[in-house]
């Protein structure tokens, strides 16, 4: 490790690792988006995941340096596991998706992963619009609860 930091090797390894993770994420991004859209569908009293671009929020969030890297790995691995169980998940209709996700929920791993996706999606819907979701404060307006003043003008107190 010491040698690595002297030669700058560890920084390269880290960058390579993040790059590989991003490649993995891009592959399963539609799976996570589909799960979010199933959890937050159209015609609900809350804005839909699709209309709030929660998948974009998710991508930016888990790759931000403030996000726990172990959880980032889990978010990706859990989606890979889902698609391994249900190869045609993306082409399923709502009823089949429901069945597949409830079956996945029966496993402890699946249950934890779904809870993590729920958390990320809620974070998208109810964080300040500066983060790119909760567009026009739609999430806040649905529950008549609004963030405090002053609002952030940059993401993560940059």
């Amino acid at each position, binding site marked *: 490790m010491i040698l690595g930091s002297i030669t700058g090797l560890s920084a390269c390894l880290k960058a390579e690792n993040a790059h590989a993770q991003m490649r993995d994420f891009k592959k399963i991004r539609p799976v996570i988006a589909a799960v979010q859209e*199933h959890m937050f569908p159209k015609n609900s009293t809350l804005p839909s995941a699709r209309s709030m671009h929660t998948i974009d929020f998710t991508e930016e969030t888990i790759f931000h340096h403030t996000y726990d890297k172990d959880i980032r790995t889990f978010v990706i691995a859990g989606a890979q596991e889902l698609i391994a169980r249900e190869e045609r998940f993306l082409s399923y209709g709502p009823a089949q998706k429901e069945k597949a996700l409830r079956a996945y*929920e029966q496993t402890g791993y699946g249950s934890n992963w779904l*809870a993590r996706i729920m958390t990320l999606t809620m974070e998208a819907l109810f964080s300040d619009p500066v983060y790119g979701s909760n567009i026009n404060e739609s999430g806040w307006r649905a*529950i008549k*609860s609004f963030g405090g003043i002053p609002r*952030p003008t940059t993401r993560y107190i940059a």
Partner: protein
Amino acid sequence: MMKQPLYDAVIIGSGASGGAVAYTLTKAGYKVAMLEKGRLIRREEFSKDELAYCRRDIVTPNLFDEYHVIEQKVDGKWEATPTYDSGWSFWNGNIVGGSSNFMSGMFHRLHPDDFRLKSKYGAIEGANVVDWPISYEDIEPYYTMAENIVGISGHYKPHPFEPPRSTPDFPQPPTQENEVVKLLDRSCRKLGVTSLVTPRAVLSQDRGHRKACYYSNFCGSYGCSSGAKGSSREALLPAALATGNLTLMSNTHVKQLVSESKTHVGYALAVDTITGKEKHIRGRIFIVAAQAHESARLLLNSADKNHPDGLANSSGELGKNLIFSGGGSGQGELHRDALKHISFDALMQTGLFVNRSVLDWYFIDDWLEGKFKGGSVEFMFEHQNIISRALKHNYDGEKLVWGKALGERVVKRFREQKSIRFEIFNDWLPTDDCFVSVDPTHKDKYGMPVGKLRINGHPQDVKVGNYIAKKCEKILEEMGAKNIYSSVSNAPAQNLVAGGCRFGDDPKTSVLNKYCQAHDIPNLFVADASFMPTGGSVAYTWTIYANAFRVADKIVEVLKKSEV
């Protein structure tokens, strides 16, 4: 190499206690260096960004870089877990002003009997309860001083368990209150319970450069954007900086204090957290104010040939008797369709405080349970953070609720009800199984052993918490709340930490003398809550401020006499 300046005092940490010491010393004309590992966030930069402040490590270190190892008993065996695995951070605000930036500011003084708990209630088996070497009278003037300088709003009402005061009332009237207090006060009266106005370290009126509270609805866990909250950064550091005597070094992490003899610390070995460059900061006196668990860790990590077991540890007591706050919390829901005596619109008005405390059970004399030390209670609304509230109660048995059913559930929760909450503060009894050491293998990114916290609560703490929780649940019932629950456990609130460097008259059994000066090393003081042998049954911050002002007066005396 240029000779480093010799400061009269070097303070490690810029939170409540460091700020109070800096305030007094700089005003007395002494040159002070304050070393803070975190950065400065100015008032104008704070916002109510829930994602950043409450859900990410923005104002605390990344747990993969700096962490603790927490040792807890699982099935009768001690199990150690690094906090990067558990996500349970024991950092509490590492920026200029420390965790005082993020407090809720519910302030109470200790009771005179908290200073003589052993004499008053006797020994408790399995607990290391001792009397303090000072009495309430010794610290009372400093409570008053903190009240004025930090700025505490409130309204004093005599109560048998309210400590005596040398002034008639608080310097400012209470902050504005939500109408729910009418319902709460009425319910308490009906049950024969006395509800008191909570003294709060939040200004209700403008004062100097600080503006009155603007009732943003997001106070605890957030930095204040008007300066109303009595953080060290707002209440103390500006005045200290104005003297021209304070050198505030942010992004400066102290790895070790380096001794020059058995009885003298020479310099702080610090690292610039941006550049990684090390520097030596020399002083006549060193004041450790890094928050209890980190202060003990720093002294343990400063072991050298003069002090093989750590600085100020000839007693072997360094790090021992770490305490938190016992108790727990509970809450219930006030529903639109069942609300009595106040309007739902008034209940839903945002930003205003609940501001109510109950001290009736500070000391308990129960016909069935007997006489014992109890605790205090604070009433408040459930924290108004939106994401965290939206994430609660979304399970139907084992199944996560989603889809339209989730939408209905969340919308109803936010629009048709508001949760009222109580928090119980009772003594966390000091025991042999609650202490700080340094981990033999785990190191932080600066190469220093991380603090290892063995945490175990005494069964009495849970007994007291449960006793009070039952009383509080009755109050919520009387208010008409639904789905009432409470949770009392031995799990600590990591932001309410004290002990580890007990003060006492006997150098064989304590780390510090009654002025919080190390018995072994006259030019070393510990100013934060580390000194407390027992914790009392209220949040610590007012006592931390008051004691640090007291300690600062002693340091001035030492500097004046050129004793170091």
